[in-house]
Every structure is written in C-alpha cells, then in structure tokens.
C-alpha cells in the first residue's frame, strides 16, 4: 500500500472514531443517572464501592447490574441472581447476530474486542448508520468510538454514584429507583398484545411466587410470562390465517 493511500485510510478511520463518539454525546446524559444509581444503590444493598465498580468494569450492563443489586439487597441465592443476569442480557445475543455480518471481514481478535462493547445504545446507533449506507470499514471505527464513549461514561458515573451514594440517607429509599428504571425500560416495550400479556402474566406469577425459596418465583414468572406471550402470538396467527382464507 502506498504511503498516501495509507494516510488517507487512517484519516478516514480517525474521523469515523470521532464521529461515533460525537453521536453518543446526546445519549450520554440519559445514561449517566443510570450509572450513578448502579454505584449508589450498590452501597444500600451492602456492597462496597470497589464491588460496584467491578460490576461496571466486568459486566458493562446497566439493567443486569441494577437487577443483581436489587436481588443482593433481598438476600437472594447467587445462582438465581446469575440466572436473572443471564436472562436480562440475552438481548446481547440478538445484537451479536445482527452485528456479525457487518464485521464478518474483521479478524477474530477484533471481532471479540467489538463484542465486549455490545450495548443497547451502541447497537442502536451502528444499525442506524449501516442503514444509511456507511461503509464496513468506517462502521467498525464508528462503533469503536461510540463504544469507548459509553464505556468511559459508564465507569465515571458508577464511580461518582458510589462516592456520592454513601452520603444519601436511607430514609430517602433510593433503592426504589431500581424498579423505577425497570418501569421506564418496560413501558416502551408494551406495544402489542403478546408483549402486554407476557408482562402481565410474568408480573402476576412473580408476585404469587414471592414466598418460594431463593426468589424462584422470579424465574417462574419470566418463564410462564414468555410461554403466555407465545401462546397469544400463536392464537393471533391462527386467527389471521382463518380470516385470510
């Protein structure tokens, strides 16, 4: 490769990297309070600031971190917490499947590096750019730039939360902010009948199973909720086929 072509390519990559980071800026203020809570509520659940930070460093997954913290506070058995975390993060598998063709020509090490930065916000942005026709090489650097911006914001907001969280009086019941975050994430998902039924059944079963040992009612609720949603979907399809013929 000639020198000038290489320079041009590097310039393009740096531009894409910055483009990704810049596009993240309007999204970051919405993420920061989430990170603050991941730091602050960890303390109310009896974890220390190091543990709060370790969760952000190793998991980089807000909803799963808050769920784990909530369950630690309720003294749930760790296998149930682990299972909950894996269920909540299952969506990353979906993202991974969508991203894989975009990065298919990258080396394995690069793909694994990009995989470690898979998040809701980063995924949404890169998919939007691909639809607009951004080239594969640019997409990679764009994705890296937006992922780095998310990573830094997440670590700093967790750190700030775990430092400030120690000062917040228990009477403020900050732990209640965790279900509030989940409600904010849940409400936009309830766009059709199968998802509504799923959520309603999952909630009802989880509440009914509250007395079960080691918070098993939670897992039971998730499983029965999904089953109910699938049944509703199936019924709707059969009905639609009936009216079509």
């Amino acid at each position, binding site marked *: 490769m000639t020198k000038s072509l290489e320079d041009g390519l590097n310039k393009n990559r740096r531009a894409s990297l910055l483009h990704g980071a810049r596009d993240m800026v309007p999204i970051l203020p*919405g993420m920061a*309070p989430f990170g603050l*809570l991941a730091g602050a509520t960890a303390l109310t659940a009896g974890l220390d600031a190091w*543990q709060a930070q370790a969760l952000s460093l*190793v*998991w*980089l997954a807000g*909803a*799963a971190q808050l*769920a*784990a913290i*909530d369950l630690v506070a309720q003294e749930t058995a*760790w296998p149930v*917490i*682990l299972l909950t*975390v*894996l269920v*909540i*993060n*299952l*969506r990353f*598998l979906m*993202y*991974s*499947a969508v*991203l*894989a063709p975009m990065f298919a020509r990258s080396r394995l090490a690069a*793909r694994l590096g990009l*995989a*470690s930065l898979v998040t809701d916000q980063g995924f949404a942005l890169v998919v939007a750019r691909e639809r607009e026709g951004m080239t594969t090489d640019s997409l990679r650097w764009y994705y890296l730039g937006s992922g780095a911006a998310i990573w830094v914001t997440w670590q700093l907001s967790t750190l700030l939360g775990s430092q400030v969280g120690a000062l917040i009086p228990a*009477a*403020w*019941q900050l732990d*209640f*902010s965790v*279900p*509030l*975050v989940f*409600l*904010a994430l*849940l*409400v*936009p*998902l*309830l766009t059709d009948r199968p998802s509504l039924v*799923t*959520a309603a059944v*999952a*909630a*009802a*079963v*989880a*509440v009914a199973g509250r007395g079960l040992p080691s918070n098993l*009612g*939670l897992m039971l*609720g*998730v499983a029965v*909720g*999904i089953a109910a949603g*699938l049944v509703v979907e199936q019924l709707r399809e059969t009905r639609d086929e009936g009216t079509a013929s």
Partner: protein
Amino acid sequence: MSTQTFWILLLLGGLGTFAWRASFLGPAHGEVSPLVRRVLRLVPASALAALVAPSVLTTAADGAAWIRPVAAVAAILVARWSRSILATIVAGMVVLWVALGLT
C-alpha cells in the same frame, strides 16, 4: 452476601454476558431460528415485569403499603408520556417522598 460469593457471581455473570455478546461475533456463525427469535423478543418484557412487580408490592421498611404502588403508577404514566428514564425516576421518587412526608 459474602465477599467470596460476590466475586463468583461477578466472574460467572461476566463470562456469561460475554458469551452472549460474542455468540455470533466470535468464531461460530449461523442464523437465529424463528422460534428462538420469538422467545428472545419477549424476554425483556417478561424479565422486567417479573422483577418490578414484587419490588413494588413489597412494603419498604417504613411507610404505608400503598405508597410504592401509587408511586409506580405515577412513574408508568410519566414513562408512557415522556419516554425518558430520568423523568420516570424523578416522578416516581417525588411521589414516594411526598407520600412519605404526608403519612
């Protein structure tokens, strides 16, 4: 939770989460089957609802039993209207604090 249990949870949770993230970006390739796709679409709604409902209905250490459900309803309405996580948290917490102050 003991320190040792915490680190086990952190490590296994991290490995599992990375396994999801790398599932298709890693060495293996393939397609997601339609049934798996359907199940995955419903997972977030199911998991979030099953997490929220018991914590909202569990009474806090102090305060009347109705306070958290009422604050949660206010938060749902604000979430529907604003689609903002921050506005939802603020609405729910303000209702909680006002109700705690009144009772």
